């Protein structure tokens, strides 16, 4: 349901600010329980900061929801499952190029999703800062 609500928000956002009701109409759930489920998923997305409230009952998307490449998706999944890792650990799991992995790590460190925890024998060790948030934003 969360994915459907997210997709609806993206579609509605193209025409400007939208309300919670717009999302419910867009998904058109079969019964009251479905509507409750849509509202709950919408609240979850708002709580995670993917939407921003710009006025009374009006929201906009703040997250770039462009589809990521398969290799990058594998790298994100490997980072999530490892928790704390060095670039070589990700190479082993995701079969991606080490220089590309290092570039992805640098980008994620810069925006605060990963942090450097130390060096082990000349190898930098990183850690996912908020595991759940990382999972929702990059893996799911």
């Amino acid at each position: 349901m969360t994915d459907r609500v997210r997709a609806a928000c993206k579609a509605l956002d193209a025409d400007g600010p939208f309300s919670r009701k717009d999302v419910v109409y867009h998904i058109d759930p079969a019964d009251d329980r479905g509507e409750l489920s849509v509202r709950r998923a919408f609240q979850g997305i708002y709580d995670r900061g993917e939407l921003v409230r710009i006025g009374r009952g009006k929201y906009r998307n703040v997250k770039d929801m462009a589809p990521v490449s398969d290799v990058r998706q594998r790298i994100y999944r490997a980072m999530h499952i490892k928790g704390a890792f060095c670039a070589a650990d990700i190479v082993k799991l995701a079969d991606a190029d080490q220089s590309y992995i290092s570039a992805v790590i640098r980008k994620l460190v810069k925006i605060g999703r990963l942090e450097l925890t130390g060096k082990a024998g000349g190898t930098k060790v990183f850690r996912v800062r908020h595991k759940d948030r990382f999972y929702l934003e990059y893996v799911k």
Partner: protein
Amino acid sequence: MNKCFIPTHNYQKTEALVEELLGPAMNVDMAAVIGPAGRGKSFAMERIFTNNKNTTYVLYQEKWSHIELMREIAFRLSGERPRLRQACFDILQDEIRERRRLIIVDDGDRMSSSCLNVLRNIHDILHLPILIVGEPFLERKIMREKRLKSRTRSLLFYSPVNQADVGLFFKQTIGASLTPDQQIKILKHCEGDFRPLLTFSVKAEQIMKVSGISAVTDRIVDEICNNGRK
């Protein structure tokens, strides 16, 4: 030391099992991967999760109740952790409409009977394939209950690391070729597990670096096998 992945025969069998479980539902879609610690079960699962979008991985934490397990599965599939059991089921039902996914639960041997039966409920009600991973005690837990036993499609036992795996591992990690005798000695020392093999290769590389030689000699193998004892 070069960190690399060795697709062992155990990994290949696990990959085939995952593909089989993700195929058409047969209502007997539970399976278990069983093996002692150090055989590479968890690593194989991590790699399968990384490379297969239709899988979801849950690491069972000690003393989790069945509700906590359900919440975690709901979170992995939908991004929400509802408080109530029924809400978890509703959310899961909504989620799987779009895409059928395999739920991998690691450290399954530490799960209580009620947690195993929650997985059975998810399998029965939502028709989702479940793969439980754990140490040999898991087999006894599954066999104890006929309900679980009859729903288990296959039990995959992780066999010990073989001679070919040892040779390939040393070739790819430290670039050293081993003689068959050395492989047998190392295999005996490692007792079929991957972790001792890894520590063995680290020690061998250190000795090679210090003494300035580029090949693994019989003396190095004997010294590590005997832990420096004469």
